[in-house]
């Protein structure tokens, strides 16, 4: 069962940028790319836990600010040859509003 929670307006997330969404102790990075697609990943890089929300977004990837791993926004997984995945959450846009399910984390196959 997906439990959608309303996050914010799409315009509140910078294009090619991200916002941090807190849910209890969990920090989720919500990204928006140039084509206005949105993605939600746990804000922890699979390498050494860097805050992915602070990275540079390009295409459907984000570059981690700490050591420059590239992470696929769709799956949360590192671009080869690096290995590891950040948890990914269901997210959608409806009528310009962003909705997120912070519970149903999809743990992409590592």
């Amino acid at each position: 069962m997906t439990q959608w929670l309303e996050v914010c307006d799409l315009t509140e997330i910078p294009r090619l940028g991200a916002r941090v969404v807190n849910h209890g102790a969990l920090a989720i990075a919500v990204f928006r790319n140039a084509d206005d697609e949105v993605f939600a990943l746990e804000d922890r890089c699979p390498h050494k836990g860097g805050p992915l929300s602070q990275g540079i977004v390009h295409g459907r990837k984000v570059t981690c600010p700490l050591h420059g791993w590239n992470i696929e926004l769709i799956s949360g997984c590192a671009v080869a040859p690096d290995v590891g995945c950040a948890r990914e959450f269901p997210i959608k846009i409806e009528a310009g509003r962003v909705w997120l399910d912070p519970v149903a984390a999809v743990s992409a196959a590592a």
Partner: protein
Amino acid sequence: MIHASSQYQHAVVIGGGLLGLEAANGLMKRGMQVSVVHIGPWLMERQLDEPAARLLQKSLEEKGMKFLLQKQTAELVQGESGRVCAIKFKDGDSAPADLVVMAVGIRPNTELAESSGLHCNRGVVVNDTMQTFDPRIYSVGECAAHRGIAYGLVAPLFEQAKVVANHLAQHGISRYQGSVTSTKLKVTGIDLFSAGDFMGGEGTESILYSDPIGGVYKKLVIRDNKLVGGVMYGDTVDGAWYFSLLRDGKNVNELRDHLMFGQDHCGNLGHSGINKAASMTDDMEVCGCNGVCKGDIVKAIREKGLFTLEDVRKHTKASGSCGSCTGLVEQILAVTVGGDYSATPKTKSMCGCTEHTHEDVRAAIRQNKLLTIPQVQQFMEWDTPNGCASCRTALNYYLISTWPGEAEDDPQSRFINERAHANIQKDGTYSVIPRMWGGNTTPSELRRIADVVDKYSIPAVHVTGGQRIDLLGIKKEDLPKVWADLDMPSGHAYGKALRTVKTCVGSEWCRFGTQNSTQMGIDLEKAFFKMWAPHKVKLAVSGCPRNCAEVAIKDVGIIGVDSGWEIYVAGNGGIKTEVAQFLIKVKTEAEVMEYSGAFLQLYREEARYLDRTVHYVERVGLDYVKKKILDDHEGRKALYERLIFALSIEKDPWVERAKEGKFAQEFASLTV
């Protein structure tokens, strides 16, 4: 051949070139008696000069190989068995031969091309886009003659193929402009390296090192202060380094005295050249940043079939952070893959998103007045929709430095530190370093700092080497409040920007002081405050030659002397420790300001993003800088004015965020 080598005794190899010698060596190792027939006066004349070739011949003779030089083959003699039994020469001599190997060079078979009406001359003639005389037909590889050269090595052929692929995909304007190739002979125990114009001649100078007893010979050919070729025998560890100097067209004037002694002797106090790739053991560390040992690299190269420096970086992380071990990694690559190692192409593109070089991109931005990153990417036909972390940050800098006040400064194309105006730490918190002009502070500033530390429970306070105070472990959402409470200017410790101007107490206090170095430093810092640059910029001013402010390792260092001020440029303290070079001595404070500013603006306009001043000056040469700053008075004034204009537009980013509420979103998180 392998079969023949087990049955017969005498082999003759015709052609003493690279392939001939490799074949001869192979046959000899399989037990045959091998003679190499060569028409030229010395071996490998396309790669070696005579002294190097003599050394090579001597060591091959010691291994048992025989040489018949300046012999022209007349005839192969058939024996009774129907098989060849001897070889006859024009001068009447002959030699026994059960096996003859011809290795007399490549000659493109141009029959088909010629019969189709394509112009051929030692190959199918092509232009810089690899098109033949019929533009619908392209030609690449060993059969193509580009600017009179048909290349017989894979590295240039890869470059040609890349150009054609671009052209066919209508990806625009990349051109093949010829390659400088390097050669190694794959015969164990023989170290030989040759590259470029190794013979020299009119307009060139040569530096020679010859030790016939020790079996070492080196020659470097220089034209117009650039290395254009070289040949080495016996000691080739610096081959990769020379080749990169040659390929990049680096000005070697200032290295000249030490050039022959290799990279280790050229002022690099980093740890890059301490060990030599070949003599290292597998457990020796190569990359100190990422803890990568030689064995890891060799293993990755072998198992994953890696070919280029980029590949090795991606797979092992070696040389991926600070880059100081790049030379060593290249050496390991060369040693591990041998002659198949193809050096990175001559011109380096900005990143994987484009074929264009930094210089191309800068020129296009200037000439076409491009003002946004998407405009540049569209105009220059970027391969990716919106670049990557490395080209976007560079583009953003090129735009704002070329068109200050007009180009858009895109926060999403700035590294997080420059977006948050604070340094991200390993736990995701930030550090704040407020500016203290020239390292001076006041009781009220110190009180405010102490109060802020208490109020925001800041866990660590550190005095930096840049004469100011670092507050560490601050939560991102607290940053604007911390800045507001501090009420001090941004220190830009987070930016590719002017960091600190370190000063000593100078003539105001010091019994040795000749000039008021503190005030000079404060004036410089205030003048150049908010200056973005290709990389971080650090200045220092000392009040006398005792030099307590350590100006010798700064981008611009000023030493006060009794009669004025000495200006030094392009020093560096980091990975590559480099002593600053003397630029000029001036009389007045106003001159210090103008000369320093003009130098910094030149760097801002011409350096590649992420090059420090040391890298920039190394590339263009100090003479060039002198021409621009010292000789061209109008030019210097114009440079200085452009800098002052650019700085007049910048605002203190902390004030904007703390007091004017700008970019509030950047610092606020959401909650669900």
